């Protein structure tokens, strides 16, 4: 089919649109492919995949797009998806295979790696080609984000998943051209052991956390659900969304999907306001990409202040209402 080598990224899409993480991933793959002087391919899996998606992938920077179209791929089923990817990788033998660290990527990448008997590093914040060894250096946060580790993989393909919002997508260029290849081979239903019964959306009404321009986030120091109502008020005023660290979610003051952090949502709003939270590394992992970080906390030594641009040391119950009031009367 084509030459061995190159970078393959696994793309995601929903409701006829290419996922923003996929465009970011293509940007990463583009950089790596250029450094290796090799090709960048993307693979899109789905059922009745819209041809436009493949074209979008090329406009975003891919050279080739493989489309694997099968009714069993309409939803993410690991058995179906990983089997299809395995066949593609064994056939095209890329040097590097990348996923986004999404719900799908963090699941498919390890499975694929073990089937290919190769190594994988998840949740990378930086990928680069070592000029001497020509291997991919994979940097990822460890110890909840307190440290970074750099890995290399000596087997092929080298596999990694990339943390969302750590890269900017390339400019979309409709002049770009590339090959779109239907990669066939039916998926055997007998291979499917894990079955999806249904997907249930539990999103809060209003702005989605990952898309919000403003995120107001509360921690254990908020003290109870009533305090979070205050944060809701502010978020509404600023047209943003409310998030939380893990403790308020665990205690039940807010729903679990508000959790921002290493094992929660990753956000990078223009404005992040952290209220009564200490700023553990696990939480910072979820918001460190925010453009402007403001923190309000009673404790002057709270870790959040090491990351914040602006801070107020004080009781949020006094500081926040005054802040809110001033925002209201002085828009």
């Amino acid at each position, binding site marked *: 089919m084509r030459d061995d080598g190159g970078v393959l990224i696994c793309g995601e899409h929903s409701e006829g649109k290419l996922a923003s993480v996929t465009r970011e991933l293509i940007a990463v793959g583009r950089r790596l492919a250029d450094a290796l002087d090799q090709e960048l391919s993307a693979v899109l899996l789905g059922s009745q995949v819209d041809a436009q998606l493949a074209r979008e992938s090329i406009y975003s920077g891919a050279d080739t797009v493989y489309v694997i179209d099968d009714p069993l791929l309409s939803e993410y089923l690991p058995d179906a998806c990983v089997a299809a990817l395995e066949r593609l990788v064994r056939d095209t033998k890329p040097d590097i295979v990348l996923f986004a660290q999404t719900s799908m990527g963090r699941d498919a990448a*390890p499975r694929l790696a*073990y089937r290919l008997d190769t190594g994988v590093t998840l949740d990378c914040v930086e990928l680069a080609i070592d000029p001497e060894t020509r291997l991919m250096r994979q940097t990822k*946060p460890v110890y909840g984000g307190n440290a970074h580790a750099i890995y290399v993989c000596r087997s092929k393909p080298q596999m990694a998943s990339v943390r969302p919002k750590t890269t900017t997508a390339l400019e979309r260029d409709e002049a770009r051209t590339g090959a779109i290849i239907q990669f066939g081979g039916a998926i055997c239903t007998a291979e499917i052991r894990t079955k999806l019964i249904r997907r*249930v959306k539990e999103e809060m009404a209003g702005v989605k956390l990952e898309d919000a321009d403003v995120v107001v986030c509360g921690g254990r120091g908020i003290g109870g659900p009533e305090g979070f109502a205050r944060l809701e008020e502010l978020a509404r005023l600023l047209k943003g969304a409310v998030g939380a660290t893990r403790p308020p979610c665990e205690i039940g003051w807010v729903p679990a999907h508000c959790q921002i952090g*290493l094992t929660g949502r990753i956000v990078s709003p223009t404005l992040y306001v952290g209220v009564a939270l200490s700023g*553990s590394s696990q939480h910072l992992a979820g918001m460190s990409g925010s453009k402007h970080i403001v923190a309000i906390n009673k404790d002057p030594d709270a870790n959040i202040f090491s990351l914040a641009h*602006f801070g107020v040391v*004080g009781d949020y119950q006094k*500081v926040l209402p005054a802040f809110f009031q001033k925002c209201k009367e002085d828009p």
Partner: protein
Amino acid sequence: MNCAVCIAQVTNPETPAAAFSIDLKARRAIPAKDRPLVINDYDQVAVEAALKIKEAKGGKVTIFSLGAPSVTVAIKHCLSMGADEGILLSDERFQAEDRALVAYALAMAIRKAGNVDLILCGRQEGDWDAGQVGLGIAEILNIPSVNPVRKIEVDDGRLVVERIVDDGYELITLPLPALIGVSNEIGPARYPTMKGIMTAARKSVDVWTADDIGIAPSRLDPSSAKVNMLDLFIPMRERVCEFIEGETPEEAGANLRLRLRKEKIV
């Protein structure tokens, strides 16, 4: 309905960032003073999930862990919560940073123990955050797996689970034997009970070496690892926070707004 739970002892994730330090030579974190090692949070809820299944369906809960002999304390803690037996995989040649080796060792140990219907792991480990050991064990043993999960129901040789996704959950069914990665949303891990402690104290934890579980010495050689760590470091944080003051907290809050307005942030 026999469950195997894989647990790991990690440095305390609640260690404040200021107290966190690493041993550059050994390439691992140094437990901070007054912050002893703990059982990985997610592994504790995996134990909790196993105990709930045992209460509903009967059977045996076996704890597996790979580490130094001191990890026995962690296994005993799980026994005092209500688990039935514990197996420690301990060998000087085990390199815990080689996550694929850890997955392999746990898989081989579970295979050797035999008679396991369900394997439960925490969704992710608090030290290396590799997030692949559970899925790796499932691949090695060629059993279906789901991660991360917040609810498990057992029904006649099959599982129905809720897998957490970005904007909600997926309701998934799969046959046993299987592996499930458990997340904290499943509910808090129980405290040991007095009775549980007294029972656990009388039990002994089996210790298996790499030879006992059939791992070839060549596989234990660090050079056979596919992924190598080149470096471990603490990233420098150079931010200097501008603190907004005020005579009163209220005034500081108002001044904050004014400052942000000045920067055209709000």
